[in-house]
């Protein structure tokens, strides 16, 4: 009975980071034993002051940053130095960057079809059909033939989200997706993300958008100085946090 419950719990667990430490080559101790568990279908928002290691932490989840101590597992697959595991995990984990990182020499449609055709071996027609579906979903199907440089920041970030979705990921990582946007474009990107969450996508989001965290997150995480300080549901996190450090942080941003 207990074993069955435990097994169900591990089955719905999609990402587990345990006691992760990272030192940069210059000796800076960026992550000091950070741990996090993400369940399938859950939206986790990571907040924290700048330099707290939240971007570094989320980037270890698809091995864009390596770590020296601890363990990360994605869907039961250990994420260490084994390149085959790393590439298998990257195929299943989508990432959206602060600076969009669209490929400027390719059209929007080509940006979306490149990885499915190369990595998933889909035919051009299949990849294009899926790409157009997703562009419609993020509301910019009419821009498919344009180059990224011809779009606004908000449109570019929506293209970047669609590009990740083209690989049908099981987990989406967002690294400050709205921080490089002009204020009037933040809403359109957050709306797309909210829609994704409503459709049941598992998401880990590093952001400063309090409203988004309150409305969409299942749990909110506070990171400070490379450590996870507090994990709580949004109501508790914003109104009645248990840690002094969280209270100080909220005082500064609210």
């Amino acid at each position, binding site marked *: 009975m207990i074993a069955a419950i435990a097994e169900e719990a591990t089955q719905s667990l999609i990402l587990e980071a345990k006691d992760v430490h990272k030192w940069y080559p210059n000796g800076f101790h960026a992550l000091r034993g950070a741990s996090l568990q993400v369940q399938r279908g859950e939206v986790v928002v990571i907040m924290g002051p700048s330099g707290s290691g939240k971007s570094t932490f989320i980037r270890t989840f698809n091995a864009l940053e390596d770590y020296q101590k601890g363990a990360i597992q994605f869907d039961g697959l250990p994420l260490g130095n084994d390149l085959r595991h790393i590439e298998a995990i990257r195929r299943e984990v989508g990432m959206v960057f602060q600076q969009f*990182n669209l*490929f400027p020499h390719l059209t929007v449609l080509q940006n979306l079809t*490149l990885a499915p055709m*190369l*990595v998933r071996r889909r035919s051009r027609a299949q990849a294009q059909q899926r790409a157009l579906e997703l562009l419609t979903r993020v509301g910019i199907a009419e821009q498919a*033939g344009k180059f990224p440089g011809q779009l606004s920041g908000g449109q570019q970030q929506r293209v970047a989200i669609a590009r990740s979705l083209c690989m049908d990921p099981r987990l989406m990582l967002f690294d400050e997706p709205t921080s490089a946007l002009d204020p009037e474009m933040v809403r359109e990107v957050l709306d797309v993300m909210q829609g994704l969450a409503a459709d049941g996508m598992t998401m880990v989001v590093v952001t400063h958008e309090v409203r988004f965290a309150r409305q969409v997150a299942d749990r909110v995480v506070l990171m400070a100085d490379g450590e996870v300080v507090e994990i709580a549901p949004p109501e508790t996190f914003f109104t009645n946090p248990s840690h002094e450090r969280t209270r100080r942080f909220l005082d500064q941003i609210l």
Partner: protein
Amino acid sequence: MGNSVTRELPPGSLQRCKDWLRKELFATRLDGLLSLVLIGSILAALFGLLRWALLQANWAVIQLNSTLLCIGRYPIEQQWRLWLLAFLLAATAGASWGLLRSCRRADRPGLLWPRNDRIAAAVLLAVCLIIPPALGLSIAIAGRWLAIAVLLMAMRWLLGRIGRRLGADAIKWFALVWPVIYLLGMVLINGGFGLTPVASAEWGGLMLTLLQASFAILLCFPLGVMLALGRRSSYPLLRWGSVIYIEFIRGAPLITLLFLGQNILGFLLPGGLAPERVWRAAWVLTIFAAAYLAEAVRSGLAAIPNGQMEAARSLGLSTAQGLQHVVLPQALRVALPVMVGQFISLLQDTTLLSLIGLMELLGTARTVMANPDFLGHYGEVYLTLALLFWCCCAALGLGSRALERRLDPHHLPNLR
């Protein structure tokens, strides 16, 4: 009062011309004086050159030696092979041209290739019509040149029509025709496979120059890209190896390396394997150019933000796929002007081969000038040489600028 309506017309072209002159050249007294002095000296120089070229110069030296300057002492009975090669090249070039101008734009309706390629076509036709009679070539030879030009234009027209139906992939596949033609050309020039061999010592003139330059350009490109990637690699042996190669080659003058190559390659390789002198020189040129090209590519790679590779990797692409599809296309586009600059100086560096005794364009020209029949006609020969080199370099430069515009998504006309 008549019923005449006074309408304001835009100033006529003569008026605009006057306005432009006043504004740009004669705005102040000092400007005017400067303009007059400069225009005067330019006209005087031009007049002097024309007077020498038309009245004093004896162009017989070029007319009588045009074949020698073109292909050196290539045996007469085998020259049909070179004509065949010229026809093949014209057909391939015409086909590529046609395909490129039929390309559709990805971002909006319309064709990619600029409209002014008609001017290029007209210039090419004019050259093929004017030069052969000016050189006093026989009707048969002039006819062949005309046929080559007509073939090129016909292929350009034909593939321009067909290309619209073939789509973008056809161009990628067609690019593979070029290596095939190049290898075929090597066989045609060299002999073998049933053709009478022609020793490389008998190759010469413009043909040898272009052969050396194209060989070095084609091979130094992949080598240079690999060296540039090696220099940025995280694998130390590869990185150090690339750095040592690049810095050693860039630290030595080309002429030293050429002499070194002529003398050392024979000792390094067991007897019989050492390539002939022409090929030794070609390899030295390649090795030399690759080091400089690597630095150009490296500057291009450095201009591409890390985020590009991170995005490619996070989508599941391997490092090689990320380089091939994301980083290199952008980096090479950034490095293109510098790379073409390297190619142009490589073409000009082939003249150094005359110092190690190869009969390329300059070497052939010097034997012509040493011929007692043509003593003293240095001006005519050197001017011809300069014009030939200028044409080749200008073609490279124009081609690269067209390519640059075509590859740059940020300079699309509707972006402004």
